[in-house]
C-alpha cells in the first residue's frame, strides 16, 4: 500500500506488476494453496508437493508446445493422441531392448512426436485446412494407429527396465528429473519466444498472418515449426508419462488435449493468437494440477474437477476479452485527444 503513496520508482514497479498478464493466475494459485493448507495442513507435506510437481510436469511440457501453436492463432488438439503414440512406442521399445539408455528413449519419444507434428503442420499450411479440423482429424488417426498397433495389450511396469522407471523417481539436488525437464522446457521455450527473432516472428504471425507475410516473415516455415515443436514436446511428455506410470496401454493420455488447452487459455494465452507467454501456460498447468489435488484434499467430490476446468476456461476467455475491450477503449480515447 505504501508503494501507492510514494511516487517514483516504487510506483513504477507496482504499475509494471499490475500489467503482468499472469498476475491473476499467481493470485488464484496463492489463494488456493493458502486456503487448502489452512483447512488441511497435510496439503503442504513434502510428499504432497512432490506429487503435485510431478503431475504438473507432464502437463506443463505439453502446455509449452501448445502455447507456441496458440500464439500463432492455431490450435493442436492431437497432443493427447501424440502422447499415447509416443508413450506406447517408447514403452514397447524399452521392454524389447532393456539395455537402451534413457537418452535413446527420450530421443525416440521426441522423434515420434516431431513426425506427428510435421504431419499436422504440413496439412495445416499446405492443405489450407484450418488447424482445428486437421488436428481433430489427426486426434482420431494417431489414437487409431496406436490402438490398431497395441490392440488390447499393455506394457506393464515389470517389463520395463529398472533404470527407465527409476528416472521418474530420481532427482538432482532434491529436484525430481521430471520437474527439472519441465522447468528447462518451459524456461527455454519462454526465452526463445521472448528474446529471439524466431519467437517474435511467431507472435507476429499470430497477430496478423497477412501483415507478417507482407513484412517478409516466412509464415509457412514458422507454422510448420510451431506444430513440430508442439508434437515433439507431446512426444517428450509421452516418455515422461511412460516412466512415471510404468503401465502403458493404447488409451494413454486420452482426453489430455482438453487439459492442455485449458492450461494454455487459463495461463493467459489469447485464443485469437499474438499474445500471452509460455511461462504463463506453465503456470496454468500448475494451477490445474493444484486444483485437482486441492479438491481431493478438501474432500470435495472428484467429479467437480472437470466442471471446474470448464468454468475456468470460460472465466479466462471472459477476462481476456475484458482486457482487450478496455485496451481498445483506452486507445480510441487517446486518439480523440490528438
Amino acid at each position: 500500500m505504501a508503494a501507492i503513496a510514494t511516487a517514483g520508482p516504487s510506483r513504477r514497479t507496482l504499475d509494471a506488476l499490475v500489467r503482468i498478464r499472469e498476475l491473476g493466475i499467481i493470485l488464484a494459485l496463492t489463494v488456493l494453496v493458502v486456503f487448502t493448507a489452512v483447512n488441511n495442513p497435510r496439503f503442504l507435506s513434502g510428499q504432497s508437493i512432490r506429487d503435485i510437481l510431478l503431475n504438473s510436469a507432464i502437463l506443463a511440457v505439453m502446455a509449452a508446445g501448445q502455447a507456441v501453436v496458440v500464439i500463432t492463432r492455431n490450435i493442436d488438439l492431437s497432443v493427447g493422441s501424440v502422447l499415447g503414440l509416443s508413450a506406447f512406442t517408447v514403452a514397447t521399445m524399452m521392454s524389447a531392448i532393456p539395455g537402451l539408455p534413457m537418452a535413446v528413449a527420450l530421443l525416440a519419444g521426441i522423434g515420434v512426436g516431431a513426425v506427428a507434428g510435421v504431419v499436422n503442420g504440413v496439412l495445416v499450411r499446405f492443405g489450407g485446412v484450418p488447424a482445428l479440423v486437421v488436428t481433430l482429424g489427426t486426434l482420431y488417426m494417431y489414437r487409431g494407429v496406436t490402438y490398431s498397433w497395441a490392440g488390447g495389450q499393455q506394457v506393464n511396469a515389470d517389463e520395463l527396465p529398472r533404470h527407465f522407471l527409476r528416472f521418474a523417481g530420481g532427482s538432482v539436488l532434491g529436484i525430481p528429473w521430471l520437474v527439472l525437464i519441465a522447468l528447462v522446457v518451459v524456461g527455454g521455450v519462454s526465452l526463445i519466444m521472448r528474446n529471439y527473432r524466431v519467437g517474435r516472428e511467431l507472435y507476429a504471425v499470430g497477430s496478423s498472418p497477412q501483415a507478417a507475410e507482407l513484412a517478409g516473415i516466412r509464415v509457412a516455415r514458422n507454422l510448420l515449426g510451431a506444430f513440430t515443436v508442439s508434437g515433439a514436446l507431446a512426444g517428450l511428455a509421452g516418455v515422461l508419462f511412460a516412466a512415471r506410470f510404468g503401465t502403458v496401454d493404447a488409451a494413454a493420455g486420452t482426453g489430455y488435449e482438453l487439459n492442455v488447452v485449458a492450461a494454455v487459455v487459463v495461463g493467459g494465452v489469447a485464443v485469437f493468437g499474438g499474445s500471452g507467454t509460455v511461462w504463463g501456460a506453465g503456470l496454468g498447468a500448475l494451477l490445474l494440477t493444484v486444483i485437482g489435488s486441492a479438491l481431493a484434499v478438501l474432500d470435495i467430490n472428484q467429479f467437480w474437477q472437470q466442471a471446474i476446468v470448464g468454468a475456468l476456461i470460460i472465466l479466462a476467455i471472459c477476462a481476456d476479452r475484458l482486457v482487450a475491450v478496455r485496451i481498445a477503449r483506452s486507445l480510441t480515447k487517446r486518439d480523440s485527444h490528438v
Partner: protein
Amino acid sequence: MAVLVIASLAVPSFGTSRNFTFLVLDLMPIALVALTMTLIVVTGEIDLSVASTLGLTSSLMGWLWNNGLPIETIVPLCLVAGAILGACNGFLVTGLGLPSLAVTIGTLALYRGLAFVVLGDGAVADFPWNYTGWVTGTIGGGAVPNVLVVIVALALVSGVVLHATPFGRSLYAIGANAQAAHFSGIPVARTKFWLYVASGTIAGLAGVLWTLRYSSARADNGAGLELAVVAAVLLGGVSIFGGKGTLPGVLAGVVLLAALQNALRLQDVSGQALNVVTGALLVLSVLLPNLASSIRTTWHRRKLRQAAAH
C-alpha cells in the same frame, strides 16, 4: 452413394433390413445434432459442446427418474434443460462476443463435468418398457425404425428453414460476411443466439433418445460424439469458414460416415481402426476441395500465360 452400393455388394449382411434398422438407430444422434450444427457452421461459428449437452441431459434424466418423476414430465424438462444449456453458449458467444470455438471447448468440459456431478459414474437403467420399446421399435414391426420419422421430420423442418426462407438466406449472409450482414439489417447476434438454443434443444432430444435406446442414463453417454458430427458436417461439404454448404449434403455425409462404420464393423474391423477412417475422412473432406481448387487455379494461370505468350 457409391459407398452404399459397394458396401451392400461387398458385405453380405449390410443390405439386410435388420441391418438397416440398426444403421438408422446408430446414426440417429449424429443425424439429429448435425442438423443444427449445419446451421451454426453456415454462420461461421461452431458448437463443440453438443455431446456434453447430450451427456448432461442423459444424467439429468436418470436423476429425475430416480427421484420418482413420471417420464411424461421428465422428457419436456430435459428438452428445456438442453435449451438452457444452448442459451448459455449463445449468451457467451453473442452477448459477450467471445469466440465460439473457445467458449464451446469450455462448456464441453463444464457440461460433461456437471453430468458427472449430477449422476456420478453409475447408471440408471429401469426406464419404462413402452418408451424404450418405441425408440428401438420399427413401424408396424417392419424395417423402418420409429425414430426415422423423427429424423425425417426434423430434417425437413431444418431443410426448409435453411433453403427456402429469408431466415435461411440470412444465415449464409452472416457466414459470408457478418459485418455486411449486420449493416444490411440482419440481427446477427439474435440469430446466432437462437441457433445455439436450437442446437442445445436438439442435443437434449438426442440425449433423451440415446438414454431410451440403450435404456441407460450415464454421465459419459455420447462422449466424443462432437467429433463425428463435425466430421459429418464437413464431409457434407459445409465450409468451416461459413457461408457455404447444404443440408442434403450434410445428411449424405452422415449416411456415408455411418454406413462406412457399419460396413467396417460387419467386416470385423476393430472399433479403433474406425477412428483412423473417421479421422482420415475428416482431413480428406476438407483437403480435397482445397487441393482441387488450387490445381484448378494453377491450370487456369498457365492457360492465361500461354494465351498471353501467343
